[in-house]
């Protein structure tokens, strides 16, 4: 087949012009987030003493950090499917989250007597955290993959990892309002592990599913 033949076929397939990736993304993500929220309400729900803890610095830090991660990765995920859109600065900004968490750990170790370090690190519900965050992120993960497949990520495995990170951040924001363990020590150990698990799954799946 000659190149001019191929171009003729492409032109014949020109219409309908597909919706922009951003719209595909929003259309897929909105129901997925609602699904995750529904799952959260049915299975977990907010902790009973949530209202009393809203102003608690440990809870506020945990919740806002998860929100920050969600915002930062969201920006990256929106860029990652579009060729030629720079992603480096957006990816570097992610380091803000572990830096803040590291700072919070130092403060926590400073204000907390050493005999409480281990109990706070272990917390009361580590296993639930490890199960809940990935479960809540499953719907969003599928939605993000669905839209990124319409996109053109330059590095499929990294794009998959970012998709996993974003989905896990959604799960973490929701789970943070259920989980009674607010210490940065707990967050650093178990939230990180749960989020890394989803990001790892995303990276593995991305290497296969996001090639184009």
């Amino acid at each position, binding site marked *: 087949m000659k190149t001019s*033949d191929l171009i003729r076929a492409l032109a014949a397939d020109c219409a309908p012009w597909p919706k922009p990736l951003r719209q595909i993304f929003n259309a897929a993500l909105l129901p997925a987030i609602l699904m995750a929220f529904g799952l959260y309400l049915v299975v977990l729900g907010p902790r009973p003493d949530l209202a009393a803890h809203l102003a608690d610095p440990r809870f506020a830090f945990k919740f806002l950090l998860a929100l920050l991660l969600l915002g930062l990765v969201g920006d990256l995920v929106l860029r990652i499917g579009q060729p030629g859109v720079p992603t480096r600065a957006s990816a570097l900004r992610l380091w803000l989250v572990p830096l803040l968490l590291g700072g919070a750990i130092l403060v926590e170790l400073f204000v907390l007597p050493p005999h409480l370090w281990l109990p706070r690190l272990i917390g009361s519900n580590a296993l639930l955290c490890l199960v809940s965050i990935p479960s809540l992120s499953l719907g969003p993960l599928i939605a993000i993959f669905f839209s990124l497949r319409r996109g053109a990520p330059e590095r499929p495995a990294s794009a998959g990892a970012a998709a996993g990170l974003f989905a896990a951040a959604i799960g973490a924001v929701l789970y943070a309002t259920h989980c009674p363990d607010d210490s940065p020590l707990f967050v650093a150990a178990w939230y990180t592990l749960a989020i890394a698990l989803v990001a790892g799954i995303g990276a593995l799946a991305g290497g296969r599913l996001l090639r184009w």
Partner: protein
Amino acid sequence: MRASNAGDAAAYERLLTELTPALRAAARRGLNAAGLADTDAEDVVQETLLAIHLKRQTFDGNAPFGPWLAAIARHKMIDAWRRHGRRTKLPIDDFAEVLADGSAEPDLITADVSRHVESLPPSQRAAVRAIAIDGATIAEAAARLSMTSGAVRVALHRGLAGLARKFRTDTL
């Protein structure tokens, strides 16, 4: 690209045609830089055109066109390097004479894409052939293949997506 976006197929065809010489030059440069024969440049060009087409929803109408195009072309070039990296595990001496005869003409008939068309399912193959090679319009192809226009459109679109997939998974 913006006119094409508004549904102007003629503008789209003109755009792709005008991009092709630059894509071809870039493909040759890329293959040469990797120490590969540029006889495969046309395959890279066609694969890039397919990617431009199938990923056109990723072009943001407000952003500059150049970086978008360059990123897609680079991605497909890297793909080609990878494929050739695997291919060069074959004894290259056998091909040396063929490769040396590099009088590749523009708009050459390429073996790869033709082979891939052959391996498409029958209705997709018929639609792609009628429109690409015989130059039929959608309506003419529909009449000739006794399909509806909608079915021809779908078969053509799936056929083109299938071609891109076959390029990608081709590890020969």
